[in-house]
């Protein structure tokens, strides 16, 4: 039933949302600010008169280029870089930029700042739904006075450019001549996908571990690419049932079989490890290039993920590479570092754990912990130190193994 699936979809979409712990304070402060604003009608009118009210979006700090003098518009030959993005064109006369960290809600990044120009590169994902305007094929959001652009440059990079009004005419060229350093590629188990379609820049990554392991990149307008793998003597029955394969072809010495209507490709490499690469209509024309760009990963067993180090793992698990997640043969392990107010103590960590049921107190390395379960997994939570907690989701593992994995985790 569609309605039931919709209910479930909404539940999954909203399940991890948590309000800010200081929400009441924020609301009260906001209300007081509003009251003060109303009392200062004259001041507000003056502000409007000098044109300061039309702010854009994703305002990262209070430094407003609009308030600063203009620059001369002459091409500069000296490219600069920030956050993996190289700036290919700059108007002359800007002077030397300073670099500063930038943050906006969940996004972290860094910015190159001149008096009349600010280029900010965030690491993260934004689904930018704009009009017909694009920057090198990427849909771009633009503010009303055309002094600001924002777009998703690639799978994990968001770029924002703000200019003073006098540089409006240069904004587009600055954006058009930015370039991204080659990415290492998306990773999936033992594979690295070095090629993605040029406009596949908004991807939400989702991992599934059912009978097989899958990873999806879900983009705008319901577009998606999914790669799945299973280790077995034969290709899984649900992959082949009713499927009429097209004529096989060779890619880097491996035989690849196309599925119906060109939506999927199947191969076995090495023997006993089967893969399926599938795409929705928009990307099916790109499947051939994606598969040609697949390379083996160099480090098949990474153990360091940001601030998390993983000391012990059971044998024969397959790594997802760039996230602390492993799975194989019905077993599943996924680690999550929790920082900030939601990890101020174990009670907060528990309260923030969606659908946590039952359980009992434990210790991990002498630190307070809690072992419970949610709908699918055993969930072990523990505090590393105030402000830093860890959630360990597992399935198909004995408790002694769960404890051993937890004891081997280090939070730097």
């Amino acid at each position, binding site marked *: 039933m*569609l309605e039931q699936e*919709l209910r479930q979809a*909404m539940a999954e*979409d909203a399940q991890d949302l*948590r309000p800010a712990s200081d929400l009441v304070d924020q609301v009260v402060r906001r209300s007081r600010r509003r009251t003060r604003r109303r009392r200062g009608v004259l001041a507000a009118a003056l502000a409007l008169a000098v044109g300061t009210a039309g702010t854009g979006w994703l305002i990262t700090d209070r430094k407003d280029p609009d308030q600063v003098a203009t620059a001369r518009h002459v091409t500069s030959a000296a490219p600069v870089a920030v956050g993996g993005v190289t700036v290919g064109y700059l108007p002359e006369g800007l002077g030397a930029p300073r670099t500063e960290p930038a943050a906006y809600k969940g996004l972290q990044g860094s910015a190159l700042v001149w008096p009349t120009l600010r280029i900010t590169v965030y690491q993260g994902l934004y689904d930018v739904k704009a*009009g017909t305007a694009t920057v090198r094929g990427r849909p771009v959001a633009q503010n009303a006075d055309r002094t600001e652009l*924002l777009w998703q440059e690639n799978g994990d990079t968001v770029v924002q450019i703000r200019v003073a009004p006098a540089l409006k005419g240069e904004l587009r060229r600055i954006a058009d001549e930015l370039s991204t350093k080659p990415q290492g590629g998306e990773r999936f188990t033992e594979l690295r996908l070095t090629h993605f379609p040029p406009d596949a820049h908004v991807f939400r990554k989702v991992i599934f571990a059912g009978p097989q392991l899958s990873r999806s990149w879900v983009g705008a307008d319901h577009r998606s690419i999914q790669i799945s793998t299973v280790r077995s003597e034969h290709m899984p029955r649900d992959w082949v049932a009713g499927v009429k394969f097209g004529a096989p072809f060779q890619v880097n010495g491996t035989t690849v079989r196309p599925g119906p209507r060109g939506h999927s490709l199947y191969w076995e490499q090495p023997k006993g490890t089967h893969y399926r690469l599938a795409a929705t209509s928009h990307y099916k024309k790109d499947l051939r290039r994606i598969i040609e760009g697949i390379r083996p990963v160099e480090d098949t067993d990474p153990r360091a993920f940001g601030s998390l180090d993983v000391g012990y793992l059971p044998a024969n698990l397959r790594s997802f590479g760039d996230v*602390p*997640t492993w799975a194989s043969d019905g077993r599943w392990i996924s680690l999550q570092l929790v920082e900030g107010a939601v990890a101020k103590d174990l009670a907060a960590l528990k309260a923030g754990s969606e659908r946590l049921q039952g359980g009992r107190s434990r210790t991990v390395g002498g630190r307070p912990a809690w072992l419970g379960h949610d709908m*699918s997994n055993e969930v072990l939570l523990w505090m590393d130190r105030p402000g830093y907690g860890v959630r360990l989701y597992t399935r198909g593992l004995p408790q002694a193994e769960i404890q051993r994995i937890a004891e081997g985790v280090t939070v730097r």
Partner: protein
Amino acid sequence: MTAFADFVAARATSLLRLAHLTCGAPDEAEDVLQSALERAYRHWGRLRPDADPEPYVRRIIVNLAISRARRRRILRIDPVRDVPERPVQTPTSGVEVRQVLSAALRGLPPRQRAVLVLRFWEDLTEAQTAEILGVSLGTVKSQAAKGLAKLRGVVELEGVRSDA
């Protein structure tokens, strides 16, 4: 202030989820929730002591979300939330259906989305939905039917089965 703080502590998560689903974006949702709570806070003293403030706050949230979505028709920025790395036990086809449905829901016109959220997330009746949105019963019925038809069309277009 204490009653307001108690209300927020008890209901904020549920209200945030409603805001998220009607807006389609967590960052926008937080702002909508704050705005709605701020309005409620300003008028808190006027509420009857025995009245449940939640329907009132929900109405503000839904209508704020709709009006904001309409204002940003030309320029929309919907943050994409990182999905936690967790396994799912349901068949992959079911998961795909829900991925497609979530994305398609965000793409619906604001009022259609609000109708579906109120009917199928909040489990409100058509009459209750009409009251919150300030529209007729017929509008709720037609918007729900159109919204579901669009979602069904997207699911079929992508070749995933909704009965998996």
